[in-house]
């Protein structure tokens, strides 16, 4: 299981990416994240993240009728959300490259 501190920042970018593909709702996002390999991501885990993204105007929400139960909250990405997503991807690539180099170096030393 990924530690929560590490997960928080990464989750925000991943959720933005999922929402950027098409309009979606909380439970569907949590299911997709699980399909991608994030273990034990409940709807309640991503709800505060969705609230934060909405508060920062990176996503917008709309209530629509659902096939079962009450109206469902659908999220779509905003223009600032798209910009934020590009920034996240750039930052992530930089971080990933750095981390990979550190670990590749360590492996060489061990060999």
């Amino acid at each position: 299981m990924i530690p929560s501190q590490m997960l928080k920042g990464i989750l925000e970018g991943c959720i933005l990416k999922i929402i950027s593909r098409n309009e979606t709702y909380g439970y569907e996002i949590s299911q997709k994240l699980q399909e991608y390999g994030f273990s034990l991501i409940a709807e309640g885990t991503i709800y505060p993240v969705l609230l934060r993204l909405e508060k920062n105007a990176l996503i917008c929400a709309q209530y629509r009728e659902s096939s079962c139960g009450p109206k469902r909250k659908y999220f779509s990405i905003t223009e600032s959300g798209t910009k934020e997503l590009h920034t996240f991807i750039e930052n992530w690539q930089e971080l990933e490259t750095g981390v990979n180099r550190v670990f590749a170096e360590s492996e060489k030393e061990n060999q």
Partner: protein
Amino acid sequence: MNEKMLNKSNNDLDKEINEESSSAMTDIVCYLRGANISTYYQETVRRDLLEMVLSAQDRGESIQSVIGEDYKTFCDEVIANLPKKTRKERILDFFEIFFLGTAILGGINLVMSKETITLLGNIISGQSLNFQMSITASSLLLYGINIAGACIIVEVICKTALNPKKEKHLSKPKRFIIGGLAGGGVMAVFILVAWFGKNTLFTVNIFVYCFAVLGLLVAYKIVKVIK
């Protein structure tokens, strides 16, 4: 959807929740009520949570599978990601409680005062009528104690709604003694205040008093509309 409509629709949805989730939802909503977020956001979060819990219920899942086991951490994260109450909202909240609380306690004081009882007796028996009502130091002090006490009790209940439930480690007789002492202490304070503050501070015409109470209720309604 405005706050009132949201509240009504949430109350309707609340009835669809099963017994297992209902108790957890009550604690969560109670905790949110004590948070520094506006009633509108409290109701918005409540609607989102009800949607999550009811959908999970349809899938045959429990509230724990949606929110997890630690409701307090979940609520704290939700609260942290919502806009805090503005100064205007805090002031309006204060006046809403102040106007309603004062009107209710003022009304009770009117009904239970000896002047009102004497006045009603004199009307029935046809004796001369005295419309003056005396306000004592104790009635003002008890008003303050009641308002402050009610606010403290609500605050404590809301803030501790999601605290882990403690095992009752005290025996029944001990709990009975502690409860009796606490109740007796409160009664003693009320009696002392009533005894030492029985002097009349000023008198007021009973009709003026009634208009003041009605005025407070109108002020309360105005604050509700502004909110």
